[in-house]
């Protein structure tokens, strides 16, 4: 055996002194640095996007697309020259919006509809949340009421308008009833879905930590169900807004105020197509605005905190 390879030849006997010294206790400080080193190796710092990058990624693409669509529309008007009363151009619609604004109709309609939609949505949250919790935790109730609630979610809430008019007349109660029938099932079902998706391990931890029923519901189940609940709220808002528009189009007059739906209906009666298109755009815009200002940031924050939010391109 050549002398230079001797150091690589390992026999149990030759290891004995090394093993003894190697097994000496590593000091607390040594261990700390060792562990800190491994921690550093196993975690990578998250790179936050700058504001400009966020703007370029999130705001720019939809705005560019919107401008392109309007340009194409205007291009079509200029090239094909269709009948202006059937196919108004973007400029006609813009004029219509400014006209509606200057008479004050637009502001009234937006405020009326938005406040009704908002109040209706909040009532729906107040009813849908406890209902969803009850359904999620009480199996018998869920078996009994679950199918009905899913059915109500599928049923277009406009279908309730005629009945609501007969019950409540042409009043705000009619509008709110229709909104609630649209939004409550979505919110309750969203919460149920959120609770169903909670990993069973989290509840067991709650039990092990000694949580009672109330603490389990408020400290474990509700926070854990937040992603599903938020999705339900989003859908609930969409249903509120849609049902509200439908109700306002159908039920006009009486003590019902002048909302965006009423404005749409009025423009139709006047055969004012630019006015109709202008109102549709305003309704769409309000819907997008609420999504962008309220729900999208809340959802992003919620998911990012839980490490569920993946930014595009990563």
């Amino acid at each position, binding site marked *: 055996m050549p002398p230079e390879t001797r150091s690589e030849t390992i026999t149990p006997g030759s290891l004995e002194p090394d093993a003894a010294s190697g*097994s000496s206790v590593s000091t607390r400080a040594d261990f700390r640095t*060792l562990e800190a080193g491994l921690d550093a190796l196993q975690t990578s710092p998250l790179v936050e996007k700058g504001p400009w990058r966020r703007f370029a990624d999130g705001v720019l693409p939809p705005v560019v697309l919107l401008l392109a669509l309007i340009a194409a529309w205007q291009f079509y008007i200029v090239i094909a020259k269709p009948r202006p009363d059937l196919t108004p151009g973007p400029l006609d619609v813009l004029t219509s919006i400014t006209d509606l604004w200057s008479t004050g109709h637009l502001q009234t309609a937006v405020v009326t509809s938005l406040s009704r939609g908002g109040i209706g949505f909040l009532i729906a949250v107040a009813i849908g949340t406890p209902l969803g919790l009850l359904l999620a935790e009480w199996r018998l109730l869920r078996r009994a009421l679950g199918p009905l609630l899913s059915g109500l979610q599928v049923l277009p809430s406009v279908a309730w308008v005629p009945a609501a008019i007969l019950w409540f007349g042409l009043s705000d109660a009619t509008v709110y009833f229709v909104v609630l029938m649209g939004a409550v099932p979505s919110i309750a079902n969203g919460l149920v879905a959120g609770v169903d998706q909670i990993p069973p391990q989290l509840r067991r*931890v709650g039990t*092990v*930590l000694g949580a009672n029923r109330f603490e389990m519901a408020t*400290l*474990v189940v509700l926070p854990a169900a937040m992603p599903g609940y938020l999705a339900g709220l989003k859908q609930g808002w969409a249903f509120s807004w849609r049902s509200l528009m439908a109700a306002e189009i159908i039920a006009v007059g009486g003590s019902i105020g002048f909302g965006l739906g009423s404005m749409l209906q009025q423009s139709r009666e006047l055969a004012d197509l630019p006015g109709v298109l202008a109102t549709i755009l305003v309704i769409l815009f309000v819907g997008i605005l609420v999504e962008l200002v309220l729900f999208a940031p809340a959802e992003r924050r919620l998911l990012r905190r*839980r*490490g*569920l939010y993946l930014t595009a391109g990563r």
Partner: protein
Amino acid sequence: MSAVSVTERDRTDGSGNRPQGISVSTNTAPAAVVAADVETAIRVEGLSKRFGKAGPVVLDNINLTIKPGEFVCLLGASGCGKSTLLNIIAGLEHPSEGTVTVASGKSAVMFQESALFPWLTASRNVELALKLRGVPRGRRRGEALELLDLVNLADAANKRPHELSGGMRQRVALARSLAQDRKVLLMDEPFAALDAITRDLLHEELERVWHETGRTIVFVTHNVREAARLGQRVLLMSSRPGRIRNEWRIEDNGPRRIESPEVSRLSIEITNHLREEIRRNAA
């Protein structure tokens, strides 16, 4: 100059084949009957478990006494009911027959997945355990930081679970179970999902925490070396039905490492017994 001396107690008939090189003394007397009333942390008597009325017997007549401050490893192949036994001791499942007595009341439990609440920071996760224990609000933050410092994670207190590595999460989970301040800590394969380097460090961490806090630890694992590395007592369980087959007592008179020759030797012996148990299930 071995750091470890091993005592084997055969729970069946004492006819196990023993490899050379380990001093083994067989003790046929039932476990710790003497002075059991004074010094018992956990007592399991005649415990059996079957799922459903006609289901298979998962655990069959388990008798076990664990002293305060002991580090006991429950070792067995898949399906031997070791996790079920742990869950029963934890009070998460109920035995079909027999009794379990935990002298100090309830016990703290740590699972294979850290099961940290993803919406809370590391520190808040620990603070929640303190809150549910009834620690007043003003003292929670400080105590949580102390516990995190015990597992070398004070710097990560404000990080959320998804920002931590698997090993760090398990350390937060360890800090959280220590926050419960219960004398008994039950651990269900807590390091099974970690890579070998991290697991090795966490063994040392756990050993130190055990020495510093004096907890009674019941550690479930299917990793023979892990059991030989950590335990003062290693209980080998058979599968279908789960019974305690063998027991090794390891006299701990010095620091052990997973590479230590004593640990290797003991691992080989335990593995031979484990394979014997698994062979029984063939055909």
